[in-house]
């Protein structure tokens, strides 16, 4: 924690209440949900990257012991609507099970229901499917070519989205600039890969007409999407929010899983569960993340001031439209990063290929965009033989320029980037780091310094959807909190979504405790099911500190106001004289004349004769909060106020590479981090360090690699490499606090921090290390095998 806080509980070094159940093994994850008579689903998946499904022979499987049903795509498609994609592409339907044509290796073709998961897996192997393999395409650029195989023939092309935005006088700025350069940067296909796979339990009660759903989910509007696909009223789907989610970081959008199990439980009359195994998760769980190719052109002057940028982002979305195309839209809200770039041309292209479908990944496309921006800044510096830090400093938005509106129309709330950078170097000078690098180089190592200065847009609005698809008219994304106090004075607050490790129960209790000046540990926080809930946009877009924290704050203030009114009436004094302190209310002119918390609770709950006339009895208040600065749709020329708050992170690292091995090793890592007021510093620190580890994975190790036959070859944890404790170096975090003017405590988002800048900093460090060899690399992940080969080739040339 940084500056001494004027809060009592907010920003204090307090424990996270959720932790107690997890350390005891008493979390309740979806696989722990035990509903009587539940049957199990296993999936049959397509072994080809593209194939016509000629015949599905279920006979042998259905004859096996314990097997209840085999479902194919035709039956499911007849009974359900396609999944919502948000795009205006009716000829690219997305369904849980393939119908006639399967479009990626691992796509679900049939589902088996049996008494146990093991029996269902046995039966899945006995289903005999005749395929006719079809031509396929894996590469995004090839998929754009005229003669490419079509992933969805009816769509007529592989292009899902191709949209160009021009903000400002790009051509003029390019013409007026003395210097230009271009570069190509590739973000490899990786994802968040939680340790818990996706799972769902669905149970239909035909007498109540109710579909109960327990799921490992992090997804807005999940119940209504399930209901829509199953063609039942949304009030017939009850999602249980009291399921702990074993990690998500954006990805857990198991809509096809829920529609499949929802249909099965309605069809079969007993509860059904589908808990993915690792292979199902990696191949067909629709859990991949961005695979993005950037072509960047930049115009700048001789002092390194960047004037304009043209960015073309080509996203390989895979076989169906998940959230991937929209992940090209969100970065528009911080398309220039922390820099004063006057004009931008941005072309966003989403192309279909025969790879696994993508869903949302931490940062929603911002991580890849930051990589492109930060590689660009380094290349500008490199071209001019200027220091990369100095070039950044010349381009950064200054503290006195906030609020600052970027060319794409979003206003940045606040920031003090220079102060963060200065703090990062306080005590450990830049020159010292350079000396250390040069010493390593003298010792025969390759060594490089990496810098990345990045923003974390936070507060999760959905305006990018309308930018990408003008038929979408969503202009906000709410969150809510309800507080009730019973006649004994016990406080219960609610939140209305699942969590996947963000400590939201702690957030709600801390905020309410702060406002009511009551120990947060005495405040119960519960999660009503979706039918008993107030609106929640769910924990996406780094929004909950801002949105749920904001809703809890406003609800608590409503409660406080009511308590003051009740007390003033009961004390017989004007409300202006009533002072609230530590849960009690007293007369400021006669402090002994007071009502305690318990007395006020009793009056509100039981003594309506003592209530102010006209005031609603009981102590139950709620607040529904829209996203600050939201409420408008994009302009026709493609400008939008996207997210309300912008956190800043400045990554600085020293990387060494043994030239004989090619393995990059991070030897120093310091992060300057400014997310405004930190409500719980332990949580912020954890998210930040975890984000860095995730970023290290994306930069160096993790890739959903495919072979030429269209097979995913990284489908276990032996091939898809998550960083272990050995791969994550100690990281020193330097906090700075620039409060946001748009939030109740000045807080900004921190759920994506670390991840949004670590890959860019690593790429820059590795390039600095390789520079003496005259080579550069702009493709993530920077795998040791690839680097080793490049280094060996470069040394052979010398």
């Amino acid at each position: 924690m940084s500056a001494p806080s004027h809060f009592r509980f907010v920003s204090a070094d307090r424990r996270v209440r959720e932790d107690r159940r997890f350390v005891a093994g008493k979390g309740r994850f979806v696989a722990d949900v035990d509903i009587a008579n539940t049957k199990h689903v296993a999936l049959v998946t397509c072994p080809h990257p593209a194939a016509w499904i000629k015949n599905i022979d279920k006979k042998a499987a259905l004859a096996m012991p314990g097997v209840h049903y085999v479902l194919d795509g035709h039956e499911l498609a007849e009974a359900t609507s396609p999944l919502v994609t948000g795009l205006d592409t009716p000829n690219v339907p997305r369904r849980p099970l393939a119908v006639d044509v399967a479009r990626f290796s691992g796509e679900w073709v049939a589902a088996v229901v049996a008494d146990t998961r093991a029996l269902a897996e046995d039966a899945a192997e006995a289903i005999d499917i005749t395929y006719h393999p079809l031509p396929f395409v894996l590469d995004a650029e090839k998929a754009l070519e005229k003669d490419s195989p079509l992933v969805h023939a009816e769509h007529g092309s592989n292009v899902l989205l191709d949209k160009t935005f021009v903000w400002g006088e790009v051509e003029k700025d390019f013409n007026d600039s003395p210097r230009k350069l271009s570069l190509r940067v590739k973000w490899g296909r990786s994802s968040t890969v939680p340790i818990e796979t996706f799972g769902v339990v669905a149970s239909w009660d035909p007498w109540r007409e109710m579909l109960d759903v327990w799921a490992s989910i992090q997804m807005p509007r999940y119940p209504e999407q399930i209901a829509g696909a199953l063609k039942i009223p949304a009030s017939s789907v009850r999602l249980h929010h009291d399921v702990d989610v074993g990690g998500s970081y954006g990805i857990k959008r198991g809509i096809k899983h829920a529609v499949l199990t929802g249909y099965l439980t309605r069809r079969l009359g007993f509860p059904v569960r589908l808990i993915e195994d690792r292979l199902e998760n990696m191949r067909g769980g629709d859990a991949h993340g961005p695979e993005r190719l950037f072509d960047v052109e930049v115009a700048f002057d001789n002092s390194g001031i960047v004037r304009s940028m043209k960015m073309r982002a080509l996203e390989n979305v895979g076989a169906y439209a998940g959230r991937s195309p929209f992940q090209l839209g969100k970065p528009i809200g911080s398309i220039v990063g922390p820099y004063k770039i006057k004009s931008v041309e941005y072309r966003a292209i989403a192309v279909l290929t025969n790879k696994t479908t993508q869903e949302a990944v931490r940062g929603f496309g911002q991580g890849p965009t930051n990589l492109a921006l930060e590689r660009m800044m380094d290349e500008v510096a490199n071209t001019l033989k200027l220091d990369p830090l100095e070039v950044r400093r010349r381009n950064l938005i200054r503290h006195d320029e906030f609020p600052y509106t970027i060319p794409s129309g979003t206003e940045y709330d606040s920031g003090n980037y220079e102060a963060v950078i200065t703090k990062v170097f306080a005590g450990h000078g830049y020159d010292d780091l350079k000396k250390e690098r040069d010493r390593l180089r003298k010792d025969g190592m390759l060594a490089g310094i990496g810098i990345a200065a990045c923003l974390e847009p936070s507060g999760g609005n959905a305006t990018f959807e309308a930018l990408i698809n003008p038929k979408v008219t969503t202009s906000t994304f709410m969150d809510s909190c309800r507080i009730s106090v019973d006649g004994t004075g016990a406080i219960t607050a609610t939140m209305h979504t699942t969590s996947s490790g963000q400590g939201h129960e702690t957030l709600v209790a801390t905020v309410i405790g702060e406002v009511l000046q009551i120990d947060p540990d005495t405040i119960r926080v519960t999660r009503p099911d979706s039918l008993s809930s107030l609106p929640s946009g769910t924990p996406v877009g780094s929004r909950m500190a801002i949105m749920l924290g904001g809703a809890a704050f406003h609800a608590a203030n409503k409660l406080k106001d009511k308590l003051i009114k009740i007390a003033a009436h009961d004390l017989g004094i004007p409300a202006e004289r009533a002072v609230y302190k530590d849960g009690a209310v007293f007369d400021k002119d006669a402090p002994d004349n007071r009502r305690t918390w318990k007395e006020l609770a009793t009056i509100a709950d039981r003594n309506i004769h003592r209530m102010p006339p006209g005031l609603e009895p009981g102590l139950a208040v709620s607040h529904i909060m829209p996203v600050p600065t939201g409420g408008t749709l994009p302009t026709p020329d493609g400008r939008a106020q996207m997210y309300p708050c912008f956190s800043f992170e400045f990554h600085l690292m020293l990387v060494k590479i043994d030239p004989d091995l090619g393995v990059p090793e991070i030897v120093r890592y310091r992060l300057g981090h400014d997310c405004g007021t930190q409500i719980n510093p332990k949580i912020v620190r954890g998210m930040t360090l975890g984000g860095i580890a995730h970023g290290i994975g994306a930069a160096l190790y993790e890739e959903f690699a495919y072979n030429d036959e269209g097979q995913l070859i990284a489908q276990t944890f032996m091939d898809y490499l998550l960083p272990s404790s050995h791969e994550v170096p100690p990281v020193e975090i330097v906090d700075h606090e620039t409060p946001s003017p748009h939030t109740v405590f000045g807080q900004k988002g921190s759920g994506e921090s670390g991840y949004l800048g670590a890959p860019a900093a690593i790429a820059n460090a590795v390039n600095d290390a390789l520079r003496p060899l005259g080579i550069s690399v702009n493709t993530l992940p920077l795998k040791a095998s690839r680097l080793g080969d490049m280094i060996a080739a470069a040394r052979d040339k010398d």
Partner: protein
Amino acid sequence: MRIELTVNGEKRAVDVEPRTTLLDCLRDNLGLTGAHAGCEHGVCGACTVLLDGTAVRSCLMFAVQADGIPITTIEGLAPGPGELSPLQDAFCETHGMQCGYCTPAMILTAHALLADNPEPTREQIVEAISGNLCRCTGYAQIVEAISLAAERMRGANRPAGQS
């Protein structure tokens, strides 16, 4: 097959198929759901339990192989209902987790480490937990938790009056 497992000091008879993994048996037959399936191929470590004090992956062995060997699961670490062991408490103190999915296994691995080595260095802690993947934390607060627990447990064993 009928086997007898000794789990958290209690003898439990169960009927399992020969192919039932120890993980599935603990979760499905014995209701001990603190052990979690992550990869089911022995890499992530989320299913870790202690067999005779040694941290092992319960997804990689059959339940029948554990017949007669003392098993400790996360449910066996808490001294009483609502009470935490020093190690569990240290994980809460440093917030050595987020989603909690890898946490029981991480704590059991750390428990085995501290039983062998009450004063581990940072490197030894990093090495000990390197077979347990955590996707949330980046490991720093986990390492701090184990270090803190070791320190507190050593302190607890000192005679009164010494620091």
